[in-house]
């Protein structure tokens, strides 16, 4: 990218953002300090935040005004020395010890109350299992719907996330919901929220986790109950409606689970590019241990089931197993790689996903 376009883009985004900040301010409870509010706890958290901010502003202005006033009024001029004044005054000291003490006790109490609300999940909450692995989020619903970097949640119903990590520390953070919880390998952590505004929001990984940390970003869709149920159904079922001859198109939809490690343009990623695998279709591939194998459908299935079994030469064993994925999805991915030459990439190197031939086109669900 040349420097000029970067600067032009940034200029445009700056202008958009400065006006955007203002327009956001009028929608969804966003303010100068806080993003839009989309969960039941947001307003409480913002209330505590604003309380502390106003207390802080009061003290800051007090200190600032006094500092500047004294610095100007008592600045050293010809013939003016320091005027005598006491160098200690115990009642004054006690005043500015005790008043802040009372204030911080109140703030602590407000914060503790809010925290207890944040950590106490309602009993009837809808459970979603979350697996964090570098650098993707996997969300599993109880009906079998599994989504990658995309989370559907019902509007107005409490949701509990049960979170596990496959590798290092991560942290699930949804700014609009004001919730955050670290995901720790070796234990299950939980997080709950109840979304109050339909819309789409970003979900970030907040705990540093390596190379693609800044891309470990997912999208949260808050959906009204009926739409939520319909999407969930579709997410679990759509693959069954795909006819065998269109499996490669289904595979293109599933590719979003692979994109963070496997490129389509032949460039090297965390794992080998699918372009390379495609070009080797029917030919032999060499593995780290020196063995060789013909690239075919079975090879793809084995790689999904047991990624550590055959590691392509020059790469590390970093992929986690997709053993629990159903067979049709696995076959769809194999078909996709086999027929990769039928697909096109856009200017940014992203896959253009053609529509499925079935009347019902899945959106977002995989």
């Amino acid at each position, binding site marked *: 990218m040349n420097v000029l376009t970067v600067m032009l883009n940034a200029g445009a985004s700056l202008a958009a953002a400065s006006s955007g900040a203002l327009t956001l301010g009028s929608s969804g409870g966003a303010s100068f300090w*806080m993003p839009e509010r989309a969960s039941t706890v947001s307003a409480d958290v913002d209330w505590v935040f604003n309380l502390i901010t106003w207390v802080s502003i009061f003290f800051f202005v007090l200190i600032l005004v006094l500092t500047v006033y004294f610095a100007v009024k008592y600045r050293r001029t010809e013939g003016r020395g320091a005027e005598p*004044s006491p160098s200690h005054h115990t009642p004054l000291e006690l005043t500015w010890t005790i008043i802040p003490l009372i204030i911080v006790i109140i703030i602590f109490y407000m*914060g503790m109350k809010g925290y207890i609300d944040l950590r106490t999940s309602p009993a009837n909450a809808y459970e979603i299992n979350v697996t964090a692995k570098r650098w993707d989020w996997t969300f599993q619903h109880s009906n079998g719907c599994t989504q990658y970097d995309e989370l559907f949640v019902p509007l107005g119903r409490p949701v509990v996330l049960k979170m596990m990590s496959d590798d290092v520390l991560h942290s699930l953070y949804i700014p609009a919901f004001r919730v955050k919880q670290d995901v720790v*390998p070796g234990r299950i952590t939980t997080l709950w929220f109840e979304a109050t505004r339909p819309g789409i929001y970003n979900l970030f990984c907040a*705990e540093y986790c390596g190379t693609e940390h800044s891309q470990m970003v997912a999208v949260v869709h808050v959906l009204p109950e009926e739409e939520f149920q319909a999407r969930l159904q579709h997410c679990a079922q759509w693959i069954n409606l795909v006819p065998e001859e269109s499996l490669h198109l289904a595979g293109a939809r599933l590719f979003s689970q692979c994109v963070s490690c496997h490129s389509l343009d032949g460039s090297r990623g965390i794992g080998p590019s699918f372009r390379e695998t495609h070009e080797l279709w029917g030919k032999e591939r060499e593995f780290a241990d020196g063995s060789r194998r013909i690239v075919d459908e079975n090879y793809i299935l084995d790689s999904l089931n047991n990624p550590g079994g055959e590691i392509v030469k020059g790469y590390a064993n970093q992929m986690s197993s997709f053993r629990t994925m159903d067979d049709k999805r696995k076959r769809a991915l194999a078909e996709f790689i086999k027929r990769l030459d039928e697909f096109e990439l856009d200017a940014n190197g992203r896959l253009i996903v053609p529509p499925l031939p079935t009347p019902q086109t899945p959106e977002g669900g995989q």
Partner: protein
Amino acid sequence: MSTIHSHSSAETNYLTHSRGFLSWALTLDHKRIGVMYLVSVLLSFFFGGLFALVVRTQLIFPGMDLLTRDQYNQVFTLHGAIMVFLVIIPSVPAALGNFILPIMLGAKDVAFPRLNLMSYYLWLFGAAFFLLALFMGGIDTGWTFYTPYSTDADKGSQFAGVIPALTGVFILGFSSIFTGMNFIVTIHRMRPPGMTWFRMPLFLWATYATAVIQVLATPVLAITLGLLAMERAFGIGIFNPALGGDPVLYQHFFWFYSHPAVYIMILPAMGIISELISVHSHKHIFGYKFIAFSSIAIAIFGFLVWGHHMFTSGQSELITVIFSAITFSVSIPSAIKVFNWLATLYKGSISLNTPMLYALSFMIIFSIGGLTGLHLGTLATDIHLHDTYFVVAHFHYVMMGSALLAMIGGLHHWWPKITGKMYNETLGRIGAIGVFIGFNLTFFPQFIMGSHGMPRRYHDYSGVGWLPEMTQLYAPYHFWSSVGSYVMALAFFLTAGYLIHSIFRGRPAPANPWGGRSLEWQCSSPPPHNNFDEAPTVGDCYDYSVLEWDEAQQGYRWRPDVPRPGAGGANPYKH
């Protein structure tokens, strides 16, 4: 010249006392060791600052590709590790403290001069390990070395510099411990007759409190990093969950040191500010005992609050609430100090010179840094703000805007004493104001984008999955933050320029250019090898009424009509 060094009977000062490379490399003189520390720390600051500029440039626009993601991760790790371990922790205690502390106390040297020199070489050795880490492939773990990312070379950081960097920090830790031990013993055992505890300048109280933290907290960091290195090298299964370890235990160990370490950074800075505000207002410090005891209180409370770095880590809710409660206790002694400084300014004779401008900047910046700490100590809001740019802005306001600017203010204050030269006052003021503006422009926008949810340690704020409105939301704040960092860099280069210039071309400094009462202003500038040609007069170190301006020296001198107080109290060592 002879008028300027009028009362100096010695022909030489500590700089000219002996010559040659070895006379510096093997010196046991605390002043020379302090100067060597100062040069080393400022050099490290230069490199740490360069890394910061690279980080800010990468973030100035969304989608920048100045650095690859891995390079970015390495650069922010190095920026953090260098600034914390090589710059801020040794800056005031080891560099300025080494030079000033014994003179301020009226001692001839620190208690263990050889140990002092060894501390310096340990520092150099530790810094060399950082270089080694760079050449061995770098580190990308963040300065916190969180497990299991840092311990697993396959799944986590594949960069091979982790163990050398851990070794470096381990060694730097011992450098810090030995400096702390030296200062504690010096203050306990080397006070001259008349220098009672409550006659000590507040800088000494602050350094003393710091030294206590250094001695008590750093060993825990040493053992933690030792365990971490063994975990990475041999997989001993202490912190790595795959081997039966507990990653949260590492965080507890790490913050048990690293939270008190924040006070290792800020307490001496507060000590400097107490001196600067009083001296440059020619006004007795207000609430001496409250300031002194608040330093001790901060040192004690500082040991009890480490869990506030871990509110979202998965530690138990009860512990979280307890840590939050104790955390607020730290805010009280800090508030006491700020109000006492304000009261000191009241009715003073305030000289708005360079050191004082830094001190006033400190008051404003530290207020912001401290008050935003309330947002982070409060549980309900910290859950939202943790690991965002709000935290980044908060700790830069405290660690950089407060600790480091106080150090630079102190450097200007004691520059005439250290080098014997005066710097250009006009350029000094321009530099101080430039740093203040640049600093706030850099870090204030980070508060806003942080509270809007921008996570820290992100290489980019656009890409797959990013909603365009989020990218647009964060973009202007990142842009202005980067612009601010350039302003700050320019001001720092200006500062470096006129300071270096003054060494060669500066006007010779008088013994007491500011009218300070503490003992270092009673010896010549620069001080003689043995610190004092005549025994210094110990009195109330904040009583400025006994000094008057001497036009001939361009400095202050003792008023002839006021008798010098005799040494009060008996020397316990003289029988």
